[in-house]
């Protein structure tokens, strides 16, 4: 596999999701990264095994980035394009696939096995083995599904690169404000503390925030809670919200409807805290506490803070 990896930079460094994509490509063969905008050193890409970085100094929008990536594939003679299935990859990968007439296998959770790659379908209720019918293929990697690996590679060579990328067509009117504050964005979060209707009202979320702070986790919520406005929409995880796969998902006062489980059941470890021992969520959990969240959660927070 000879890959071009499209990498998103933030503060001159590759984002976590992009590093995972770059490491995925490097572990499968030769990987060359394509970036645009300000870069610091090699953006941290050499460490995960990227050989060289093709750098366009102008910061491009996603449509332009797709043209840059396609040009890099032609000039490097690559057979594969890899990028993270985050907000950038969802916009860039399908355009690249159309330009290169390549099959796109999106949001994979497994490494290539012969011609096929595993991905989640039916919102995490099942998996599929998918193949591409083209010589070239485009792969997007699910955030937090792959590790970064050894992370001790030599610095990558950074080369200036440009091509005819056309005009910027999406104009930013107001720059992004982090919706999760200092916490990791939900799709990339390794630790998530989530709560539902069992919290009885939005004024009771303090103990959830405290637990999240103690762990360095991101907060999330169930659909009913976001629908009635107790919590913002972007916190809604589940089949019609965001699908996540953290290392640890703690669900407080969430019964575990099938639609909710669909979005979270790829979490590596699930902890459920619920007053109802019959809550369906316990069947999908690794660890559980049957008890009142208002008593259990503060004690749990204290126990975590007591760790060294």
């Amino acid at each position, binding site marked *: 596999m000879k890959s071009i990896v499209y990498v*998103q930079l933030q503060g001159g460094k590759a984002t976590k999701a992009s590093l995972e994509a770059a490491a995925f490509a490097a572990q499968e063969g030769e990987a060359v990264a394509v970036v645009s905008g300000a870069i610091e050193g090699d953006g941290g890409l050499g460490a995960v095994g990227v050989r060289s970085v093709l750098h366009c100094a102008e910061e491009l929008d996603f449509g332009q980035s*797709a043209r840059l990536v396609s040009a890099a594939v032609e000039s490097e003679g690559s057979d594969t394009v890899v990028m993270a299935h*985050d*907000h*950038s990859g*969802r*916009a860039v*990968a*399908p*355009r690249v*696939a*159309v330009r290169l007439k*390549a099959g*796109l296998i*999106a*949001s994979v959770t497994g490494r290539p096995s012969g011609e096929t790659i595993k991905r*989640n*379908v*039916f919102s*995490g*209720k*099942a*998996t*599929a*083995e*998918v*193949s*591409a*019918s083209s010589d070239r293929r485009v792969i997007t990697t699910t955030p937090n599904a792959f590790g970064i690996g050894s992370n001790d590679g030599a610095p990558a060579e950074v080369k200036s690169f440009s091509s005819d990328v056309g005009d910027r067509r*999406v104009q*930013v*009117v107001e*720059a*992004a404000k982090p*919706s999760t504050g200092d916490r990791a*964005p939900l*799709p*990339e979060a390794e*630790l998530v503390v989530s709560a539902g209707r069992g919290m009885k009202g939005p004024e009771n979320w303090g103990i959830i925030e405290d637990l999240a702070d103690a762990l360095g986790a991101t907060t999330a919520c169930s659909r009913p809670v976001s629908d009635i406005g107790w919590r913002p*929409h*972007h916190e809604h995880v589940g089949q*019609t919200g965001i699908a996540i796969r953290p290392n*640890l998902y703690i669900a407080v006062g969430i019964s575990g409807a*099938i*639609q909710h489980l*669909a979005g979270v059941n790829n979490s*590596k*470890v699930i*902890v459920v805290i619920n007053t109802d021992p019959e809550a369906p969520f*316990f069947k999908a959990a*690794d*660890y*559980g*506490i*049957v008890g009142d969240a208002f008593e*259990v959660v503060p*004690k*749990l927070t204290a*126990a975590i803070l007591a*760790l060294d």
Partner: protein
Amino acid sequence: MEILVCISKSPDTTTKIGFTADGKSLDETGVQFIINPYDEWYALVRAIELVEKNGGSVTTVTVGEADCDPVIRKALAIGAHKAVRVNAVAADAAQVAGELAAVAKSGSYEAIFCGKETIDHNSGVVPGMLAEMLDLPLVTWVSSLEYDGDKPLMKRETVNGIETVTVDGPYVLSASKGMSEQRIPNMRGIMGARSKPLDVVEPCGAAAMTHVEGFALPPAKSGVKLVDADNPEELVRLLREEAKAI
């Protein structure tokens, strides 16, 4: 405003998923089909709201066989004005996008709305393919769309938070939660939907680029380990030493 909304059929969100014995396709026994929630709740309803305010019409387009007609009629009952169905089995994102692009080119639309993904294959890449095929700007995961005169102002979800963007001229967007609220069709809408046009067109022959070799269900959890409510320290110990999650 002339808005094209891409609608697909998906299993109801409460569906317990199972596959045929060969693992090649969904076992549809007892499965209820709905309009993909992102297509309906957000893309379709916002398009209808905009046309109600500014005039124009909403056309839906679906790639699928006649078994899609009930969900298309529902879209008409909610308030779409007309529907197009491309008479082909939806095979993969590239084929669907190719067929949708052909329908989009045959009309004159100011905007093309899609849901951010379908809840069956979850790729979320049809909007981007469509934008590339039509050479249009694309804005993904739009959680709010308002117009300032002719200028669409879209809030989109990025890894850095919510960003407000705009485009000139026709565009493609993919809708996420927040763009509008679910709308339940009323009796008048349901009756009216029967007489609204549903044009069936033959496919242009767009090719699929990927193939599902087989489906599988995830391994079942081995069972929950319960910890006493008075002893959260034990849970912390298990998470650290056994699960190595913290």
